[in-house]
């Protein structure tokens, strides 16, 4: 139980730090699903699975972009929660098979909406900081303004860490429960979803980011050529 709590705290801590990178500080893009999930995979000694899962999740959330004042779906919270639950499952429950990570994606996808709600709430809370900054400017208190920035960072970190801990624990509970009732039929369904549905949806999301129709044509031609080369390679 202590081991599990420590692992959960580790996932929550990493998520908190990545949430800072996502919007509040630096924005080095370490919070992108590919990097975030690969990092978690490395920490939990599941590097190969982390890279693969990160690639899937990156494609699915490729269109989450902070344009202007728009608050997009929180891809970081969702990805870290999904990956965290999968890695904790592997460490504390049983072997990770494709059905488990596929189920985790299906269960965890709506967490991005909860994360978006959390971001909006944090923005509303920051209104209070802006008012306090006005008061600090009246007296020329520049230290207070620096402290307000620090307060906003701490708030973002703890809000996202707590949300990750709650969601990851709940998801792990669900995964453990559902794993027991997965029949061969359901394993087939999840296998097909993982092999066909999630990749094609991910590519479609990424393609929807392209501004020119010619880009989609180019992607289709590349697909045909590379698929032909790969098939020829195997038959040779």
């Amino acid at each position: 139980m202590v081991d599990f709590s420590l692992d959960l705290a580790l996932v929550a801590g990493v998520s908190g730090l990545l949430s800072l990178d996502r919007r509040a500080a630096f924005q080095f893009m370490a919070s992108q699903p590919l990097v975030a999930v690969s990092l978690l995979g490395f920490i939990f000694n599941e590097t190969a699975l982390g890279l693969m899962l990160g690639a899937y999740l990156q494609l699915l959330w490729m269109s989450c972009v902070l344009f202007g004042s728009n608050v997009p779906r929180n891809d970081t919270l969702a990805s870290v929660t999904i990956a965290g639950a999968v890695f904790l499952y592997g460490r504390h429950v049983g072997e990770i098979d494709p059905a488990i990570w596929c189920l985790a994606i299906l269960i965890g996808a709506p967490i991005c909406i909860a994360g978006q709600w959390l971001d909006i709430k944090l923005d509303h809370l920051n209104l209070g900081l802006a008012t306090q900054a006005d008061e600090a400017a009246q007296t020329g208190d520049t230290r207070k303004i620096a402290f307000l920035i620090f307060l906003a960072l701490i708030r973002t970190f703890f809000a996202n860490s707590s949300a990750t801990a709650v969601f990851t624990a709940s998801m792990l509970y669900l995964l453990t429960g559902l794993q027991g009732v997965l029949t061969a039929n359901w394993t087939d369904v999840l296998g097909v979803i993982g092999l066909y549905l999630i990749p094609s949806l991910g590519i479609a999301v990424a393609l929807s980011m392209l501004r020119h129709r010619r880009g989609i044509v180019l992607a289709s031609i590349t697909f045909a050529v590379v698929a032909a080369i790969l098939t020829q390679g195997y038959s040779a």
Partner: protein
Amino acid sequence: MTGSQNKANAISSWILFRVLWRSFFIQAASNFERMQNVGVCFCMTPALRALYSGDDLNNALKRHLQFFNTHPYMSGALIGASIRIEEDIANGIRHPDDVCNFKRYMMGPMAAIGDSFFWASLRPFAAAWAVMGVLSGILWAPIGFLVLFNLCHLGLRTFGLFYGYRDGEQICERIHRLGLVRIADRTHYLAALFLGATAAIFADRAMHSQFKLADGVEPFLLFSMMLIFLLGLKRSLSMVSLLYIAAFGTASLVMFLNSAFPIM
């Protein structure tokens, strides 16, 4: 302007570096009313303290707590130029309203360039390359993604701040001359290439899995599903709803096929 005159060369490189460091936190206290205002004021503080004291400092801080919203990576250029204008204001050359007007008029165009270049082009391009790399067995692809993206990010942030301070308002012209929008347009095609190759790798994986359907059908199935999803996304259906609709459809189909044609 008492206590603020003759401040030529008051801004050292060290102060600019401090401003650059603080610019990484520009969105920390982002809010719906005045967006990045607290962040900008926090960034400008080292420069303003070097230029002003007393009531002048208070007024300068208040000037930078007005509404501000731009692309975070482009903020360096606007902040650098704002410091130059503040220096002129402190020396009595310009009116305090000039800095507010400059920020008000330039934050929109700079945000548009940043959104177009970084969010809509460089990020999908670098991510598409990294995803293709990971699927092809390049284990360092996520690090490559970070390096590629941040070379541009940190380069433009630093260039913007230092040249912004040197050139003042002319920095906007300089940024325009970099041709970021044109580069963004071209990276779209590269991203398309990488995505096409990624889709082919996924098809190849499906062909060599335990769920292969029949010889050569998998790429067509994957491609058709991709086009259907693309159509759904263009019709404003969200990714999550598409995922659930398709998962439900797949589950029903597989269950039906397994019951109608059981494998003996």
